[in-house]
């Protein structure tokens, strides 16, 4: 397993980072070839959390398989559920009531904020700053409270189901989200004061982990990783689903292509998400939160693909149906998998210490990559 240790014939040093390493945010294993302190090659080894979710889904019904996807990219669990529900609804030809659509987008954006907050805290911790971690979790707990009231869970929600959402929102949901928006707006400025303007932080991020727009496209990067290189790829804008076409928000683009650009994209996305929440929270229409569907869902023979924008990028669900009550084949296009494949290209020629800054701004969630 770790036989690739020592030095090569050229005198290059080979070191293993992970699977147990705090900067890999989970169980990623990188074999790094170094010349002195300069990276010659980064080779990711995956599978330390490969739970064969795609194989499992082949024997789970269309209602059951959604709960497994919450555990895939657990920081975007609502958005994963959303993608699967949309894909099943596409196959069934079901129209979701407007109230459910509003609720889905609201919880999606709350999830995005929670995910970006965790990324912000963890990334700052990777670079040696411990305090941001506590600041980020302080606000994240508020979102968890809101989620807990409505969905009954803090992390893996399983709230969005085919046909709508599992239950109506809690009566206090709108009020608490409004309170959170008011609180969070001031906190984003605090985050910027604390970290973004810090000169040490900027020096570690600027010019590190360069990724050009052409390379980002070639490697299939999506989400903030690609948008930091100036590639327009926000699924919410390009291929709007649910009510996103009617919401005013802008796709955040930065053209630097370095770690700092990717950082800025996520920080600005926090503000955009708050803006989306503000537009929706007073306008949640009355009506049903769920449309009646059959107890056992059967998709017609055919293929269905649905993509959504998670906090990490474009997440796709590809269902191949043979007409039964379980999918014949299901493929999850996970954003992290493609983003990770670009890591070697981004880190090559840089210093080992910068690898952490590069990896931090990719925002990798390993179970999402391994599936």
């Amino acid at each position, binding site marked *: *397993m770790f036989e690739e240790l020592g030095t090569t014939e050229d005198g290059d040093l080979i070191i293993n980072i992970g*699977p*147990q*390493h*705090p900067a890999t945010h*989970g*169980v990623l294993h990188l074999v790094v070839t170094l010349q002195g302190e300069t990276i010659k090659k980064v080779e990711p080894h995956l*599978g*330390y*959390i*490969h*739970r*064969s*979710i795609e*194989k*499992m889904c*082949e*024997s*789970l019904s269309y209602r059951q398989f959604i*709960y*497994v996807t919450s*555990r895939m990219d*657990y*920081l975007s669990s609502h958005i994963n559920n959303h993608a699967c529900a949309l894909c099943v609804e596409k196959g069934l030809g079901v129209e979701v009531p407007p109230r459910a659509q509003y609720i889905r987008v609201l919880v999606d954006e709350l999830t995005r904020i929670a995910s970006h907050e*965790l990324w912000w*805290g*963890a990334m700052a911790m990777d670079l040696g700053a411990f305090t941001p*971690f*506590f*600041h980020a*979790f*302080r606000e*994240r*707990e508020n979102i*968890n409270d809101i989620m807990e009231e409505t969905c009954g869970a*803090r*992390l*893996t929600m399983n709230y969005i189901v085919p046909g709508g959402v599992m239950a109506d929102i809690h009566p206090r949901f709108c009020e608490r989200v409004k309170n959170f928006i008011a609180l969070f707006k001031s906190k984003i400025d605090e985050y910027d004061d604390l970290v973004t303007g810090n000169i040490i932080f900027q020096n570690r991020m600027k010019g590190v982990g360069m990724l050009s727009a052409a390379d980002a496209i070639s490697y299939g990067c999506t989400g903030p990783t690609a948008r930091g290189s100036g590639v327009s790829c926000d699924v919410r804008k390009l291929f709007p689903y649910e009510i996103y076409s009617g919401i005013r928000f802008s796709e955040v683009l930065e053209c630097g292509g370095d770690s700092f650009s990717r950082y800025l994209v996520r920080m600005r996305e926090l503000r955009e998400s708050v803006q989306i929440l503000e537009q929706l929270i007073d306008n949640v229409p009355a009506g049903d939160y769920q449309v009646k569907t059959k107890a056992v869902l059967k998709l017609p023979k055919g293929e269905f693909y649905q993509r959504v924008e998670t906090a990490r990028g474009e997440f796709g669900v590809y269902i191949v149906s043979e007409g039964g009550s379980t999918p014949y084949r299901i493929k999850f296009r996970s954003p992290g998998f493609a983003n990770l494949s670009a890591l070697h290209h981004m880190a090559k020629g840089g210093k080992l210490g910068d690898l952490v800054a590069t990896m931090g701004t990719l925002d990798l969630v*390993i*179970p999402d990559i391994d599936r």
Partner: protein
Amino acid sequence: MTTEPSIPPDFPGQIKETAGGGIVLSKLDELVNWARSNSLWPLTFATSCCGIEMMAVASSRYDFARFGFEVARATPRQADVIIIAGTIVNKMAPVLKRLYDQMADPKYVIAMGACAISGGPFFYNTYSVVKGADHIIPVDVYIPGCPPRPEALLHALITLQDKIKSGLTREQLKTGNP
């Protein structure tokens, strides 16, 4: 004038005041266990979702530093307790064993969440998941949940402290005769 040092309520033993100092009457084992239980350094070992709840316990609101767990270590050689937060798959199993072997004695294991207990939601129809971390290393405390609430992890940590303080082995606790 010096202030009187306060004696923690769970201190195992008596302190007799004498002129010029004092005498502690206790058993060495109990003193050692008491000291051990109040300074457990966890290993930051997280494979999946439960790791996020573990981070939540480490951070602002829940703050396991209150119970002596504040120094989360990234290397097993400095850690006392390993919290298995997440699914263990066949490829990870030898790594987990190696991490456990690298920890210095005495060492303790907490299995956090359904995956670490039994494979959890990934029990059926999967070729790669280990059906419970106790197939690989011995576990002291199990926490149910998917993922468990932070309070549940805190409860598990306190339960582990009680176990260490009691000084009993798993078999002794099970049968009830020391």
